[in-house]
């Protein structure tokens, strides 16, 4: 009895997860397409926010909650704002603009589609029916992540720190007026 | 000491130049003499370490890998940091270690524009690491990384310090080689996925492996014939571009002509050897069956290259371009030796690599020095070098003689045994075809004499043209040149007199590399059967290994 209930609950959860996944995925793909096709640069930035949020949601679905939060904080909180600053500083029009794209986008479309086909083929060929067990596993805890960062990956972490510092200085140096 | 050398020798020798380059990066470029000192010092240290390796090398076991280090590197793809040295690698390693310091010394006397010794020398150091690493790597990914490391410094050496048309030449060089390496990488990956490391007789931890020791001892014998052919084809193009073989050679004349002298020397002396080394070390021992199928093509392209390169030489008026074309011809002899798939031919090929490195390097040195003095290498304007700079003229003559394969000098021992080997290729190949190749290759020796002597006559003989008759800049060999040239000259004579110095080293290693021992027997033995029987032998071997692996 209990097992049956458990099973149905699990089944329901799986179905729900799938439903969520596809909804979010559809939204993300749509938003991503708008990012690259919108002729209003500010709109594009806002669509990017949607994609990034979608990614954060996918992370949560995959049990990476801490990462999802970080995604929201860093990307939506910082990066997108930075983009908007950039847009304003370069005095792009806030309204729609005709020349955001090249007029002839067919080679690019062709490339992208071909790329997609190759990748999709490879992906399906490789992981056609591999399942991810999310239900029975608890989400990774922040502690586990931080333990890993500060022990196993400490060198990489330090390198990232230096990189960020260098990027900071570099950005200042590059953007500084003479 | 010896234990230390065993564990760290190869790693140290490879990365010493890189350390030197890092040190140089930390110092501002105005401090030129410091940079020169560090660069030269580093290469000398590396060369000294190389000498230590040579001294401690066990010559009785030249066929076995020595100084092997096997540490985990990229576990995810089973790629390990494996380095080792055997009789094939050792001469080439020493060649690289020797040529680079000579280039450094030479460049002190003739710095190409736009000067900047810091960047120039550190690029050469990075280049050296790449070359050394390629010769010692025993893991395909490691090999590939080193192989590619070579590319970038050379690109900049040509593109920044080159001649008038340097951008075109450097871009061509870069794209061409990159194209080749891409195909090569695919082949490597295919090997990784298709081979079965557990059936190898040596070092076989896992099924999928990049370990060259395992791949050359039977891990590949499970791969279907069709796939083998494709994989070999990829490597063939990848290495063939680097060699360069006949239809893929067009980057070479441009790169050589435009490169600064030192770049040309390194290119000729070491870089081209990476391609042939790849054939000897990787393509043939890994896939003997595919090699047998591809060999007629290799041999044909090789002899076409011999004749084509020679004829190309005769049509040149630029001396450096002529020497570049002669490289195509000489590498043709090397490839002919390789295509026979016999120990004889491959030994000849390895000797040919070393001797070509020494001799053509020498020729490029002289050409570079002449360019410094005359500011042109147009042979219609040159002449009478022997009058104005007799010593340099004699050296040019000497190097030309060596290059045309004069017995008693190193060139002969690369050329003649290759022709010899072509008379009697591996049993699985058609002897008649190779005998035809042999005759054409022999004709190539005549043409070689033709173009080299013609060059000598145009540049060294006769009297100086009016243009340069009273040019005070045309002086004889200077100190830097003597220091950097004399080792090459001496080695050309020494190897010419006593070729066993190299043959003795390479022979055991080559014999071993051809005896590909798989689970079901020695794949190398299949090469010594007639065509049909040989192919059947490979198929049987595959079945045997496959069923054994299945159990």
């Amino acid at each position, binding site marked *: 009895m209990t097992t049956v209930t458990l099973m149905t609950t699990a089944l329901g959860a799986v179905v729900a997860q799938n439903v969520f996944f596809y909804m979010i995925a559809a939204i993300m793909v749509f938003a991503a397409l708008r990012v690259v096709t919108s002729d209003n640069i500010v709109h594009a930035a806002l669509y990017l926010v949607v994609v990034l949020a979608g990614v954060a949601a996918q992370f949560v679905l995959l049990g990476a909650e801490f990462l999802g939060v970080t995604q929201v904080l860093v990307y939506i909180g910082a990066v997108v704002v930075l983009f908007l600053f950039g847009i304003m500083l370069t005095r792009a029009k806030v309204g729609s603009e005709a020349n955001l794209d*090249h007029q002839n986008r067919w080679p*690019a479309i062709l490339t992208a589609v071909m*790329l997609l086909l*190759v990748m999709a083929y490879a992906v399906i*060929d490789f992981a056609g029916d591999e399942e991810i067990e999310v239900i029975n596993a608890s989400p990774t805890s922040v502690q586990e992540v931080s333990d890993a960062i500060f022990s196993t990956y400490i060198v990489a972490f330090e390198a990232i720190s230096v990189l960020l510092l260098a990027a900071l200085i570099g950005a200042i140096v590059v953007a500084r007026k003479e | 000491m010896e234990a230390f050398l065993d564990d760290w020798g190869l790693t140290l020798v490879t990365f010493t130049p890189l350390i030197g380059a890092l040190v140089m990066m930390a110092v501002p470029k105005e401090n030129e003499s410091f940079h020169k000192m560090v660069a030269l010092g580093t290469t000398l240290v590396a060369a000294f370490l190389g000498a230590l390796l040579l001294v401690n090398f066990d010559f009785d076991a030249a066929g076995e890998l020595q100084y092997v280090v096997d540490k985990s590197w990229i576990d995810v793809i089973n790629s390990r940091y494996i380095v080792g040295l055997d009789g094939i690698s050792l001469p080439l390693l020493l060649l690289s270690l020797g040529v680079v310091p000579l280039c450094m010394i030479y460049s002190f006397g003739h710095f190409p524009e736009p000067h900047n010794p810091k960047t120039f020398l550190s690029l050469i150091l990075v280049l050296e690491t790449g070359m050394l690493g390629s010769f010692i790597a025993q893991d395909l990914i490691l090999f590939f990384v080193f192989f590619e490391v070579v590319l970038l410094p050379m690109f900049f050496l040509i593109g920044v310090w080159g001649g008038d048309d340097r951008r075109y030449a450097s871009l061509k060089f870069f794209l061409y080689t990159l194209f080749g390496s891409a195909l090569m990488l695919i082949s490597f990956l295919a090997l990784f996925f298709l081979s079965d490391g557990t059936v190898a007789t040596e070092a076989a931890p896992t099924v999928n492996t990049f370990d060259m020791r395992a791949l050359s001892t039977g891990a590949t014998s499970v791969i279907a014939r069709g796939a083998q052919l494709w994989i070999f084809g990829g490597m063939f193009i990848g290495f063939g571009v680097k060699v360069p073989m006949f239809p893929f050679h*067009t980057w070479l004349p441009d790169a050589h002509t435009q490169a600064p002298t030192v770049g040309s020397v390194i290119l000729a002396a070491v870089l081209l050897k990476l391609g042939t080394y790849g054939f000897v070390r990787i393509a043939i021992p890994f896939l003997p069956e595919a090699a047998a199928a591809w060999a007629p093509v290799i041999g044909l392209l090789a002899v076409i290259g011999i004749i084509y390169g020679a004829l190309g030489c005769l049509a040149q008026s630029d001396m450096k371009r002529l020497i570049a074309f002669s490289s195509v011809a000489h590498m043709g002899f090397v490839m002919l030796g390789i295509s026979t798939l016999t120990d004889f031919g491959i030994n000849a090929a390895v000797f040919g690599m070393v001797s070509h490195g020494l001799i053509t390097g020498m020729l490029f040195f002289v050409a570079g020095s002449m360019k410094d003095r005359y500011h042109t290498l147009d042979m219609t304007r040159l002449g009478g070098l022997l*009058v104005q700079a007799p010593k340099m003229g004699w050296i040019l003559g000497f190097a030309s003689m060596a290059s045309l394969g004069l017995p008693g000098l190193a060139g002969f021992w690369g050329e003649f045994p290759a022709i010899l080997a072509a008379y009697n290729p591996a049993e699985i190949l058609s002897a008649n075809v190779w005998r035809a190749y042999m005759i054409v290759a022999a004709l190539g020796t005549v*043409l070689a004499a*033709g173009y080299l002597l013609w060059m000598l006559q145009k540049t060294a003989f006769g009297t100086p043209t009016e243009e340069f008759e009273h040019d005070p800049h045309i002086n004889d060999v200077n100190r830097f040149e003597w220091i950097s040239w004399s080792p090459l000259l001496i080695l050309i004579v020494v190897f010419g007199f006593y070729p066993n110095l190299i043959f003795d080293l390479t022979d055991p290693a080559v014999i071993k590399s051809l005896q590909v021992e798989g689970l079901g027997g020695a794949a190398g033995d299949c090469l010594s059967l007639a065509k049909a029987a040989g192919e059947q032998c490979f198929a049987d071997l595959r079945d045997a290994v496959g069923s054994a692996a299945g159990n």
Partner: protein
Amino acid sequence: MTSLLAAEEASAAIQAGGFFLENVWIIPAIMATSFACILFFGKRLPKGGSEIGIAAVLICFLLSLVTAGQWISEVNRADNCVVAQLSEDKYICAASADGAGEFASAVGSAGSAVAAENDVLVDAEGDEGPAKGAGLKPVISNRTWWSNGGINFTVGTMVDGLTVALLVVVSLVSTLVHIYSTDYVAGDRRFTHYFAFLSLFTAAMLFFVTAENILQMIVGWELVGVCSFALIGHWWEDQSNSDAALKAFLTNRVGDMGLLIGMIILFFASGETWSIVDINKLAIEHTTSHTLLLIASLCLLAAVMSKSGQFFLHTWLPDAMAGPTPVSALIHAATMVVAGIYLVARLYGVFFEGLSIAGSSLNALALIGGITTLVGASLAFVQDDIKKVLAYSTISQLGYMALALGVGAWTAAIFHLFTHAFFKALLFLGAGSVSHSVHSFNMKTHMGGMRKFMPTTYKTFLIGSIALAGLPPLAGFWSKDEILVGTGGWGFFEGKPHSNGAYTVMLVMGMLTAAMTAAYMTRVMYLTFFGEFRGGHHDDHDDHGHDDAHAHHGDPHESGPRILWPLRILAFLAVTVGFLNLPPGFLGLPKGITERFGHYVEPSSAAKYFPKINHADPSWSLAIFSTIVVSLGVAAAYFYYFVRVNRQNPAGTELVGGPTSRFGLLRAGHTMLKNNYYLDHIYDGGAPVGAAGATAVGALFGVAAGSALGFSLDNGLDQSFVPSLIWGIVLGGSVFAIVSTALRTGVGAATFVKRPLAWATNWTHENVLDAAVDQVGIRSVQAAEVVYTRIDQGVIDGTVNAAGSGSSGIGGELRRMTTGKVQQYATVMFAGAIVLAGLLIIVI
């Protein structure tokens, strides 16, 4: 089972030994060291390094004599040897058998020891007392040189009679040339280099003749070639000199191709060995495939033709006269050109079996030799340059040697090589002496009546001429006579052909040549030493150029002692060396005096590396007949020049209104000779002439070689007649086609260097391959660009226009490809990545 053997037909051979025979490497090593010393220290020495060279070559000469002495004593030991068999192929000298008593004791002591140990029985019984004598195995000492495929290959020395003979000739002539040169090239700006290369030249030749294996022979062969290159081109400031040097080297290189291939075939046919002895042995035992031997010997023949100046690869030899005269003497007498003859002699087993010399009446080697000897002699008639006469004469005499080898008269060939070395060196050095005095080599414009000015030179030159012409009793007579006898053709007339075969045609050719040789030497004598002096008012130092550091004007004068003494020594030798090999039974002389040369030099067939040759019987009638023929030649030329020309005008050189101006046919022949049978035109002439000529001569040679083979094969020696014939024709034709093509593309002659083939290749390179690569790049970008650049109309125009531009535009096109537009690059990059990824997926 031991057998005792007759001296004449020894069937066992014992091992020779001796310090100098085993350590003969010292001799070339001394010369090589001398080369290095002169090169590095020569300039600092008071005499510019010549003293080192002379000292070294003198030591070499003495050592060669010692070596020869040791060899002779070994031969004597073998002659007096009673042989005991140790194992199947190993014999020892059980006793020296000068007397029966000694022999008995020998059997009792040494012999019994051997008998006890090795279970041999010495059969000492016999009607005529104990038979004695044995062949001698060559002395071989070697060590590892290189190893390949697990096989060790050796380097070492091999000494037998042939080696010793050549050692003596080379070192002796070289010594005299060294001494002569100190005067002749004195004051030359490259005096030191000259002597350095003389040393190296000698070293290379000595290395060549002492070679233990054929690979070493290749090395020596090529080194000789390169030294001759350096010496012929000694005065490289003049384009014509360096052209001559290049021509010499390249022509030789063409032959070397045959050498390489031939040697490689021998190597594999004999079961992967380089050893001369083994290769010969296997060939003689018929272990080696006959077809392979045939091909190998034809290939080697090509090498011999180039090196030894055989028709039709002889054209470099006259041009090589551009070098200093002593060098010419060295090249023609002792080093370079005899290398080819030596090669045949050394590998005689191969040639003997390969060309089926025994028992046939014609073969490629004999035919080539015969043609060469006639061609050379006829060309010598029309030269004005005294050195060129001698050069063609050398060609002719080398032809004699090749002919002799071709008919199986091995000893005669080597003996002729030996005598010829002395009198040809004498003639060259004499010519040099004359030219040193008149500053020219042209007999017609600068010489005449030199007898009065240079009596010693005149006398020695006269001796040389007589020796060359072959009048008894000078050296040339004996060796020439032996060759004529050796053809076996005279026996044919007498009705008893000797068993090497009846080479009657060769006899006729040789006889004709003898007459012609006598005639042209008479001509040279007249033009140079008789009549009136025609020089004096000429001051143009045309081709003598650089010799004259101390240029004398006015009357010519006799040369100094350093020039004259070598002449005197050589003249003495030219008179006497012929007696070294008197025919057996000559004037009833005992056996210990006749045929000494042949006895010591010719290897015994018992040593198994030399074929069994049948020696022809000497014939008084032939000797008398040939002497009459030679005398007729002398008489005809004497009548023409000394009587008619001299009577018409003492200062004249040809008969005005003579036969050539009266008869069209003769005139045509004369013109053809003047043009060297138009061979040079074929080699470096224009394309149509060259192609037609190459084909014609190639076909001729092919047919000649083929039919020669046909003859020799006709005698039932080989069953595969038709394939061999085809091989002969194909090989002959292709060799010639290759030769002429290579020469035409390669010879430094300004006319034809960079012509069609090379240009075509370069064109292909630039317009097909290179362009293809560029086009791939250009096109792929164009595909993208057609779309991309609609905004930038200007670029489109350029792209379309650029498609067909020539090689100079290629760089520009690629530049156009590199638009600098990052996104274009990115598109291409991604496209490439997709393709590669796709490939990877497919492969795996």
